[in-house]
């Protein structure tokens, strides 16, 4: 009998939970839900924390799950604000885009790799498998390990577009998901080459992770150069709302685009957008 009592209690708890949702929804004027890009999520969470401090009792709940999720949730209304690290595609119109920050994409190699710069042609050669060994590029006689990003990732699309590559031409040895996986892969393999967010790589290098950023088009890969627009490979991180935002969402978006959060943007390794 104790068991049935427990089951009854649980059912009651779930039921009470259901009622609680109604209450939470009624008070949802003070709660913002953000979902989307895992790249933007840590930054948005920090901005949300500061916003909460300045605007009690507002609450900002940041969820992650990928850009496509953010775009879909913003459209369906499952989230108040979506987060995206890629441009909108066909069929995704109807959302208002609020640029948040810029993020550069640069090539990285192991810190012990003597190669200092690669030309555009050399990069396409390496990624299409035309160039197989580092010795062809003035490096040691070892086979190049090409680290590529998984399909659909904004970093991949920006990289391919810049070098005029088609993903089916790329001869990858390793395919990775998030930036840090790329950094760990290259740091653990002396003959690897990959590309990641400039901010991610800079923060890791500062902590002594053995990787090095390669310049692009003669411009050094740094958040500074991403911010001033001279670094050629970059993408935009943005927040999205269905139509024009109002109320708390609008306050939050204004705050997120203001100079008050520039230190947070820099802290997370991204470049604020000059206004």
């Amino acid at each position, binding site marked *: *009998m104790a*068991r049935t009592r*427990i*089951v009854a209690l*649980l059912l009651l708890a*779930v039921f009470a*939970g*259901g009622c*609680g*949702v109604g209450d*939470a929804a009624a008070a949802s004027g003070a709660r913002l*839900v953000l979902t989307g890009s*895992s*790249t933007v*999520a*840590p*930054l948005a*969470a*920090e901005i949300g924390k500061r916003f909460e401090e300045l605007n009690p009792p507002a*609450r900002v*709940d*940041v*969820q*992650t*799950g990928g850009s496509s999720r953010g775009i879909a949730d913003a459209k369906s209304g*499952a989230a108040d604000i979506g987060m995206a690290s890629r441009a909108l595609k066909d069929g995704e119109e109807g959302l208002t885009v609020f640029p948040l920050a810029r993020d550069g994409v640069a090539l990285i190699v192991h810190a012990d790799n003597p190669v200092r710069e690669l030309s555009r042609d050399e990069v396409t050669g390496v990624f299409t498998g035309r160039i197989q060994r580092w010795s062809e590029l003035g490096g040691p006689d070892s086979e190049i390990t090409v680290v590529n990003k998984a399909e659909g990732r904004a970093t991949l699309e920006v990289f391919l577009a810049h070098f005029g590559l088609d993903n089916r031409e790329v001869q990858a040895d390793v395919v990775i*998901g*998030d*930036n*840090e*996986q790329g*950094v760990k892969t290259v740091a653990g393999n002396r003959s690897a080459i990959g590309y990641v967010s400039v*901010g*991610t*790589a800079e*923060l*890791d290098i*500062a*902590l002594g992770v053995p990787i090095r950023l390669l310049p692009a088009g003669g411009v050094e890969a740094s958040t500074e150069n991403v911010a001033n627009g001279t670094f050629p490979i970059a993408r935009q991180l943005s927040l999205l709302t269905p139509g024009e935002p109002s109320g708390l969402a609008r306050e939050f978006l204004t705050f997120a685009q203001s100079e008050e959060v520039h230190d947070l943007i820099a*802290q*997370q*390794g991204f470049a604020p957008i000059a206004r």
Partner: protein
Amino acid sequence: MRELRLPAGERVATTLMWAAAAFVAGSLLWILGDMIVRGLGGLSPAFLTSAPADAGRAGGIGPILVSTLAILAVCIGVAAPLGLATAVFLSELAVGRRGFGDLVRRSLDALAAVPSIVFGLFGNALFCHVLGLGFSILSGGLTLACMALPLLIRTTEEALRAVPQEQRLGAAALGLSRLTTLRRLLLPAAAPGIGAGLVLGVGRAIAETAALLFTSGYVTRMPGSLLDSGRSLSVHVFDLAMNVPGGNENAYASACVLVLALLAINALAVEGTRWWARRAAR
């Protein structure tokens, strides 16, 4: 001839068994040691109680610890009674109902093999949206309960089956009701097996990342109720290790805490089932 050969084979087997055990223990200690060497330096009372700062690179894991325990409590609270009921049904009652029992068993086998990410997407659709629980500790705990069930039920069922049939017949001959037989005879006898199942099931559940990312969420604030979103330790470790540059140190420290917590849960389950077996046998 045979007597002469036996000891040699026995000796080889003994060596092999000890070697296998040493390998298992060794690989475990390697992984744990690696984690502890990298993570122990970051551990401190302040780390356990303070809130994360700077996307988790700085600060501690206080609210995350609370969320994790809450998710775990929901998971055990739902999975343990449901799993026990199902296991008892399958081992004690389903014999006469071959069709239905087989169906349940088969569907549990299939459930055991659902990829965790599918659990996450399913939990997100059912608990967060259809049932309206949103990103919450409750959604996460319920999703984990679904995940933990097959392992829990299988081990519990095996344990119940191991109780000799004579004892059941004896109980029936004494005119004991099924409920009494269950409480006084079957459950105490099967308690160690049930405990092992609980540890396995919960261990698998709490280690889960993909399923929780989509259900209990990413929020690092101290949860106020079961309906708040709360980040679990495993999600925190994954985010710090794979998504936050410079998050390594805190990732390993959090991983350390996770392992120590698992050790504690494990000990608790072992002691708990032993206590229960003693009490119920009285």
